[in-house]
């Protein structure tokens, strides 16, 4: 493509942005060695731009510069100034230079156009190639897939072939086998057939012979003399009875045989049943303690089962006696056996599992339970030993006891020995008791006498008082002498009254002096201690053991019943209280039980 017209050049120039873009491409190398700051926008106002380059002042410089540029471009002509001054130039070289430049520009444009075309072409081919590439890739993928699919089908077909081949092999073998069987059968048949044919042929021959040769030899038996029967009996006529007897004989033999076999079977059955029963018992026995040691959740079931099995056992043993061949019993037995066996098997499996678990545990853990187990065992052994010794000792003692009881005299003697001390004590106590009793009696007597006296004195005193009062009253009048005698009586009564008190105190002193002998190692109550109530005392009295208890209680009773004879009710109560006090005191001093 060659640009020949200037118009073309101009049209190139006139196309704004496209050209500028192209021009950027083409002009960029020249821009590098350019005077910087100068962008050469090729617009319509090109003249104004060029005019910026060259002004009135710098004409020669611009001329020289242009010459340089022209020289660089390879143009030989130079621009000359027409005169040394001014801005005029020689037109011819300038025009030539311009023409040359235009030519160069044209050439460049052409080249540019060509290159652009080339590039377009190349782009299109590239696109084309890309498209074809992608298409080919797709094709390739497709064909790969197809290939794999075909591989797959090929593999399956191969498998099928193999199976079919094996089937074919087996079928062939079977066919061969059948063929051989058929062959052997066929040979057998043919052999038999041939044999039969030969026989038939012989028959035919013989028949023909016989037909021809009618002189038959007589078939007969020639015996010198008849023999006797082997069993010596005479032969019998053939009668229905005989045939019936034959039948019965036959049936007898059969029955006999059945009987023997049945007996044998029964024996066998019985033995097997025995064995089964034994097995069942043993299994139950083995399972029973284990069942008891299982957790409570299953305990109820197990106990139930045990109950059931016990029932079964009972039922079975009872039925055994009845009928061995009872279907029900046999079934029950079998079921129970199966049940027990299942339990045993489960148990064994559990044990196996447990043992396996144990085995899986560390060795340390294994030894520790062993040690504890051993310790436990030791301890238990010791305990057992101790218990044994204890029992032994007990036994010995018991033996002694028993031995002593056999001999009455010695026993009595021994008993006496043991109770001797007690007896002595008892005797002493009795003595004391008697003493006290006597003293008490005395006191009582004195007391009663005193009480009586006191009563009398009191009466007399009252009388005296009454008399004194009377006298006094009357001595309002002059009778004063006689009253002093009556008061002295009263005093005497009073003094008399004080006597028993004194006596009581003396008795008390006596009491206190009497030895306090306690059979029991309980502390003496102090005299100043508060007097215990009667109920308490009686209670304690009743608590005293053996013979002395009854005596003491008797004493108590005796004292209770022996209330002091009463005078005046007021005095009586007092006296009673006193008596009670006295009794209490005696008891308290003798048997200080509080």
């Amino acid at each position: 493509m060659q640009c020949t017209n200037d118009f073309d050049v101009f049209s190139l120039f006139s196309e704004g942005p496209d050209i500028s873009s192209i021009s950027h491409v083409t002009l960029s190398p020249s821009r590098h060695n350019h005077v910087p700051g100068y962008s050469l926008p090729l617009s319509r106002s090109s003249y104004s731009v060029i005019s910026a380059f060259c002004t009135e002042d710098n004409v020669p410089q611009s001329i020289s510069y242009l010459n340089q540029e022209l020289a660089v471009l390879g143009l030989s002509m130079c621009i000359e100034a027409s005169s040394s001054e001014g801005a005029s130039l020689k037109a011819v070289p300038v025009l030539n230079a311009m023409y040359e430049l235009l030519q160069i520009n044209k050439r460049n444009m052409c080249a540019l156009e060509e290159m652009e075309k080339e590039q377009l072409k190349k782009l299109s081919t590239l696109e084309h190639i890309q498209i074809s590439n992608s298409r080919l890739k797709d094709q390739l993928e497709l064909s790969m897939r197809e290939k794999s699919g075909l591989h797959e089908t090929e593999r399956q077909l191969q498998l099928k072939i193999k199976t079919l081949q094996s089937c074919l092999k087996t079928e062939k073998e079977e066919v061969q086998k059948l063929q051989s069987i058929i062959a052997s059968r066929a040979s057998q048949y043919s052999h038999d057939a041939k044999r039969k044919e030969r026989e038939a042929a012989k028959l035919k021959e013989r028949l023909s012979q016989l037909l021809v040769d009618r002189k038959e030899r007589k078939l007969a038996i020639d015996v010198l003399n008849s023999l006797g029967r082997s069993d010596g009996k005479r032969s019998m006529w053939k009668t229905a009875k005989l045939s019936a007897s034959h039948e019965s004989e036959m049936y007898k033999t059969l029955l006999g045989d059945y009987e023997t076999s049945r007996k044998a079977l029964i024996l066998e059955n019985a033995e097997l049943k025995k064995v089964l029963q034994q097995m069942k018992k043993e299994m139950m026995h083995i399972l029973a303690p284990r069942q008891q040691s299982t957790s409570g959740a299953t305990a109820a079931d197990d106990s139930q089962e045990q109950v059931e099995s016990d029932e079964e056992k009972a039922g079975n043993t009872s039925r055994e006696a009845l009928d061995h061949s009872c279907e029900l019993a046999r079934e029950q037995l079998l079921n129970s056996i199966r049940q027990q066996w299942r339990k045993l098997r489960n148990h064994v499996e559990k044990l196996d599992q447990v043992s396996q678990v144990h085995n899986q545990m560390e060795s340390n853990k294994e030894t520790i339970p062993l040690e504890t187990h051993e310790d436990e065992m030791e301890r238990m052994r010791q305990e057992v030993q101790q218990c044994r010794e204890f029992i032994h000792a007990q036994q010995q003692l018991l033996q002694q006891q028993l031995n002593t009881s056999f001999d009455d005299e010695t026993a009595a003697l021994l008993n006496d020995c043991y109770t001797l001390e007690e007896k002595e004590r008892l005797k002493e106590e009795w003595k004391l008791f008697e003493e006290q009793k006597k003293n008490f009696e005395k006191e009582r007597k004195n007391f009663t006498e005193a009480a009586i006296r006191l009563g009398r004195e009191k009466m007399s005193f009252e009388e005296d008082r009454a008399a004194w009062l009377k006298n006094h009253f009357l001595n309002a009048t002059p009778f004063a002498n006689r009253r002093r005698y009556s008061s002295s009586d009263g005093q005497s009564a009073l003094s008399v009254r004080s006597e028993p008190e004194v006596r009581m105190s003396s008795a008390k002193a006596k009491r206190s002096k009497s030895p306090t002998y306690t059979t029991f190692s309980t502390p003496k109550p102090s005299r100043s201690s508060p007097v215990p109530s009667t109920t308490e005392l009686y209670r304690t009295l009743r608590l005293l053991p053996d013979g002395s208890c009854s005596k003491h209680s008797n004493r108590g009773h005796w004292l209770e019943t022996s209330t002091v004879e009463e005078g005046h009710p007021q005095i009586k109560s007092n006296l009673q209280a006193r008596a009670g006090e006295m009794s209490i005191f005696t008891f308290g001093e003798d048997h200080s039980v509080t």
Partner: protein
Amino acid sequence: MNFSEVFKQSNHLCKVSPDGKYLATCVQYRLVVRDLSTLQILQLYTCLDQVSHMEWSSDSLFILCAMYKRGLVQVWSLEQPDWHCKIDEGSIGLVSSRWSPDGRHILNTTEFHLRITVWSLCTKAVSYIKYPKACQKGIDFSRDGCYMALAERRDCKDYVSIFVCDDWHLLRHFETETQDLAGLEWSPNGCVLAVWDSCLEYKVLLYSLDGRLLSTYSAYEWSLGVKSVSWSPSSQFLAIGSYDEKVRILNHITWKKIVQFEHPATIDNTKAIVYKEVDRRPAVVSDELSLHNITMGSTLFSTQSKYEICPLPVQIPVVKPEPDRANPKIGVSVLAFSSDSRYLATKNGSFQVQSLNWHCSGDSVILLGKDQLCLCYMDTDYEEK
């Protein structure tokens, strides 16, 4: 072991009397009776023709000599040498002849199995039994001699007739469910009759004495079936040997298989002891027999042979029979129970063992081969193979 001199015999007819006192041998047409302990000739009888079959009567008083070609049967008495008896079957021919269990009747099977003629030596009477079957074992007497079972075939069906041997009264007559009855055998207690089919079908039927079918046993189909059958002496077991080289044992209570023995080509069961006969003379074929303990005496023969214990596993030589020949020589052909029903001796394959017989005490067995015999003593509890 000492041996006597050699005596001649023909047709392998050499039998000891049932009471064990006499030995009867046939040489051509002569019958020689010797005393067994001294081997002195006691009697000498002459028959009319070459003797085909010779049999002692059950009471050891009479000997039957049958001449099949002539159709004659002669009976000789030991007590009375002058006594003679001749039975002529005439033109009808004679195929087999035997004593009845009481020793007073002779049963002759005519040619082509047309009939069985029962001759009575007591009454000279004759009875005929029609349509007997020609098979491997068509007639069997019960052990106590009371009953006889006979296989019959009429109209292409198999029947069994049970006769009372006393007077040949027909007790029972029933049809069997067999295709082609091959044999029948009484159990030792006389209450069960085992009936088996031909080798084309494996079928064993068990009938009770009164003709009821007790049970049927069939191990497999199509392949060749039963080859040999044997009862244990206690009547508890029935051993069935078949062409598949296995022995199956049924029990008498349920009539179901309780155990199955195999005869593998390679023995590697650690409980088995294998004795191999080793011959000094290389020409003789060595037999391999898996039995217990050794004894062998054959100074009679010029070869010395010895039994050695072979280390396990032992490979037994197997001869594959030709497939297109009938009655192949495979399978268990001989079965023998010991008298206490503890042991079972079997012969499998094509070994040259013709019979196995146990001693009545149950601890020794004798193997009879074609040219040799072997006595084996048991002294442990091993099961034999």
